[in-house]
């Protein structure tokens, strides 16, 4: 399967490096191997990211953060610079949707802001921010952000670089 996406070979070696005793060198038999989240969270790209746990959860098979090679490749391909904005927006929505209900509700927003600021803002500020976010982006005024609202908002951001 590597021949289809050559850049994956590099990523495979990185995956293997995370857990050498777990990941076999030979993938032709399609083994069912999952690297646990604790190891994935130590990767330099994710280590300092406040959302690393959510990212791992979103891309993992069962939503628990343990990733197979496929999940791993998926994650990197979406996070890479070459992925299209729409794709990134879609996954960003999933990352920020903490309770997996396809909407970013107020509770999700609170979690997001708290994680982002590492608890530096007090409760009043956090709630004000959440209120403003919903104000600005909620198109249908149902008190939460749907994927569409989110996409509208994100795709207009000039520096949605990631």
């Amino acid at each position, binding site marked *: 399967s590597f021949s*289809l996406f050559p850049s994956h070979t590099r990523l495979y070696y990185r995956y293997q490096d995370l857990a050498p005793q777990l990941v076999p060198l030979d993938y032709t038999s399609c083994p069912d191997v999952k690297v646990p989240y604790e190891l994935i969270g130590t990767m330099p790209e994710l280590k300092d990211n406040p959302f690393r746990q959510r990212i791992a959860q979103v891309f993992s098979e069962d939503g628990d953060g343990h990733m197979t090679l496929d*999940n791993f490749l998926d994650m990197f391909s979406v996070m890479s610079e070459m992925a299209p904005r*729409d794709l990134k927006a879609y996954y960003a929505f999933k990352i920020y949707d903490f309770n997996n209900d396809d909407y970013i509700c107020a509770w999700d927003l609170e979690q997001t802001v708290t994680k982002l600021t590492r608890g530096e803002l007090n409760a009043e500020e956090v709630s004000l*921010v959440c209120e403003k976010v919903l104000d600005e982006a909620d198109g249908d005024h149902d008190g939460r952000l749907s994927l569409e609202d989110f996409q509208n*908002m994100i795709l207009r951001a000039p*520096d949605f670089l990631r």
Partner: protein
Amino acid sequence: MKPSKASQRYRSIRRNTSQHCFYQESLLLSTLDDSFTADDTGDSNDPEQIFQNIQFQKDLMANIRCRPWTMGQKLRALRRAKDIVLKFEGRLTRTRGYQAAGAELWRKLARLACNFVVIFIPWEMRIKKIESHFGSGVASYFIFLRWLFGINIVLTIMTGAFIVIPELIAGQPFGSTASKTIPMEHVASAQDLDTVWSLGGYLQYSVLFYGYYGKERRIGRAGYRLPLAMAKNSRTSLASASSENYTFCWRVFCAWDYLIGNPEAAESKTAAIVNSIREAILEEQEKKKSKNLAVTICLRVVANILVLLSLAGSIYLIYFVVDRSQKLEQSKKELTLWEKNEVSVVVSLVTMLAPSAFDLIAALEMYHPRTTLRFQLARVLVLYLGNLYSLIIALLDKVDSMSIEEAASQNSTSHWTDSATFATRAASEEEKWSTLGPGVGLRRNSTWALEEANVPTYTSPLSGANKTTVSTKRPQDQCWETYVGQRRGGPEEEVEGGRGRAWGHPRIPVFQELLKLSIIDMLFTVASILLIDFFRGLFVRYLSDYWCWDLESKFPEYGEFKIAENVLHLVYNQGMIWMGAFFSPCLPAFNVLKLIGLMYLRSWAVLTCNVPHQQVFRASRSNNFYLAMLLFMLFLCMLPTIFAIVRYKPSLNCGPFSGQEKIYDIVSETINKDFPAWFGSVVGYISSPVVILPAVLLLFMLIYYLQSIARSLKLSNHQLRMQIQNARSEDKKKVAQMVEARIQTQDESTKRLPKDSDLGSQLSSTHPATPQNNGNVVSFDSSSSKSSRIETVTHPAPRSPRPGPGSATSPLPGFSKSRLEPSTTR
């Protein structure tokens, strides 16, 4: 035998919907097991069908990157698609296979080439490292620096290829003509450090400076003008007129810079985000407050007055310093180190200190930080331009006065020839000096006087009785252009017997000043980096334990990398180079070296001494701004050059344009003599007012036309955006209405739905709904999301399989389902 009902229905759907909703289909494709091989599909021999199938698979292959499927699904779909295409294309044509193979090979090559090329981009790893530590804002400075480096290299190559090398190869060798040889008395001192420092000696008589170049007319050199900057990086910024609408959203969702890979940077970035959110909160609160306008306006007026005063002060200071140095030259025999370099030092000091002063003043104004930054940039830009211009004007004033005197003196002396009687002249010079003796105080004067080359004994050319002082000049000295590119030469001391440092003549430091300025500026930059950033960092880090207050969080803290000001500094530097590039062709080469040094020094300094910003700086929007500034600077800096070219007579003895009334006469001379006659007359006709005026008029009209087009495009852009917003909100209203209507029908149908987790039921129910979707998967368009919303609205337990053979627009297995499916089936 048919495998299952599911596959049957799948095939029927495939047949009917073909290209539409292949998103859903392929999703189903991937969730079905692998028993589904290529043989099962395409069950008919209908070529039309096969062709459509193949097209569909090809589209799938092309768009596979954009699908939000997991990697496993993608790989399976891709493999299947390839199998199908391979199998069936063989039936249609053979050559398409080769085409496809060729295309794939080409793609692989292109990818390889791309990866390969990155190795050659200079400093890429360094910049990436900085980007990961400090974010993309700071990295943009270094990218800009690298771009300037590229421009300077191009400039160097062009000047080198067209000017320097021909001269070196084919011109008269060193020592043959007067303008290329160092006078005897100077040879002794030519290698003194002091002389080299002031760019005298060998350097003065080298290719570095304009005076070296011979007089022969050569086509390449004659009409050469400064190359225009190649602005190929016209980045289109995303024009978001609604920039104020989503401030909080963006700060929450888009603030994190995913390129950061370092804990310190992450911490700083977090702090920056916290600050920006707090800022936004503050703004929000302030909007509700009423401001005390009177006090604010008063303070702002005061601040502006201060700024204007300081600008005026710096301009005057520079003019004053240049003037004073001229007077010093005239009056004193020997100048101290300070006095020699005074002008450059003063200019560089002002350049370093004034922006910080502006920063402090801006604290009075209490603007929004973005506005403050813009004001700061504008003021610093005005300061730099003012400095450069006042320098140039002061120096050109001298040229003016000198050329007046030169013209006067020309009448009273005989002319000289540029001959090979250098030896005799040298001898006669020495002789002359000894005759003059110490009694005649050779003082500085800004007059040029001519010397007789052939006459062995000549009276000192007391150019006119009304001249107060006397100086002896040599033909080499009369290159004001050289001294424009150089700087005022070393200690001007007349020495009897020609020993010691014996430049001894007032030079007109016009462009000579610029190179010196560039060098001193470099030294000051190095010094300021070391002092302000490095020692400060050391001080804060090691002494904060012993100090009264926490040095790291309060004053003085670690330094931040001031992007805007550093970029402006680069632009100012480049402007200087452009000003002098015509008169000193090696100035761009020197600038290349300077930029290399600057790159290494600054990248080291940033990584060692600086911390990431507390304030979020939107780098992506400023790229066009920097480019615009650079081009504007280029234009402004070319003006003095052009002015000098046009207005002043070239010096009589040196440089390629010597002996003519105006520098650009060379052009007309060339045209007259080298080109055929008809060409000359044509050019003459073209350059007459009859043609020029209508052409200028036409240009004006073109500009006006383009501008009105741009205005109307902006307007239509805005209107379209409004339309989109309106359409979306209308859609939402309709959806809300439909939702209510559905609620009743759904409620009825929930009773009789079979607990069938088989996809088959869903497939049949998807069938009528599919025509709604167009095949554009990449935009998860509103209909699918609407339908999924319908689903979740009507069924609060989203995990149960969807019902409803009866419902018309029943929920599609949209992406929410796609996520659910794997979780239920795995």
